[in-house]
């Protein structure tokens, strides 16, 4: 669905974790942030940016 509007499906993920997994939470956040950094800004952000610079 999202790929139809050029958003890479890799930008969405699902994790399972229990209430006791505090460290896993921190790990997920770190890993996922790194992954998104690698993917770069979303096409929507780029479009917004373009619009702003055009004005």
């Amino acid at each position, binding site marked *: *669905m*999202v790929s139809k*509007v*050029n*958003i*890479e499906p*890799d*930008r*969405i*993920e*699902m*994790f*399972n*974790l*229990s*209430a*006791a*997994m*505090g*460290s*896993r*939470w*921190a*790990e*997920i*956040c*770190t890993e*996922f*942030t790194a*992954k*998104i*950094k*690698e*993917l*770069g*800004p*979303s*096409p*929507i*952000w*780029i479009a*917004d*940016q373009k619009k702003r610079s055009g004005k």
Partner: protein
Amino acid sequence: MAVQAKATKEEISSVEAAGETSSEWEPRILAFACHYCAFAAADLAGVMRLSYPTNVQIIRLPCTGKLDNYHILRAFERGMDGVFVAG
């Protein structure tokens, strides 16, 4: 995975643009978390004084079953760069 993704046309343009704006761009990430498990885990991470990136903003749900694909679409529409669901 990223290399593979970069091969498509849209990706190349997004990578190019990322290069141009890398100084100001910071990933914005939205987490949908279940109140009873993942949100509690996030809470615990705080109590444990673990550090993790500030890029992640959390929306707490009574249960991740509440989540609809529409909510994820809306997150991207509002400029999120990544969305994850934890429960």
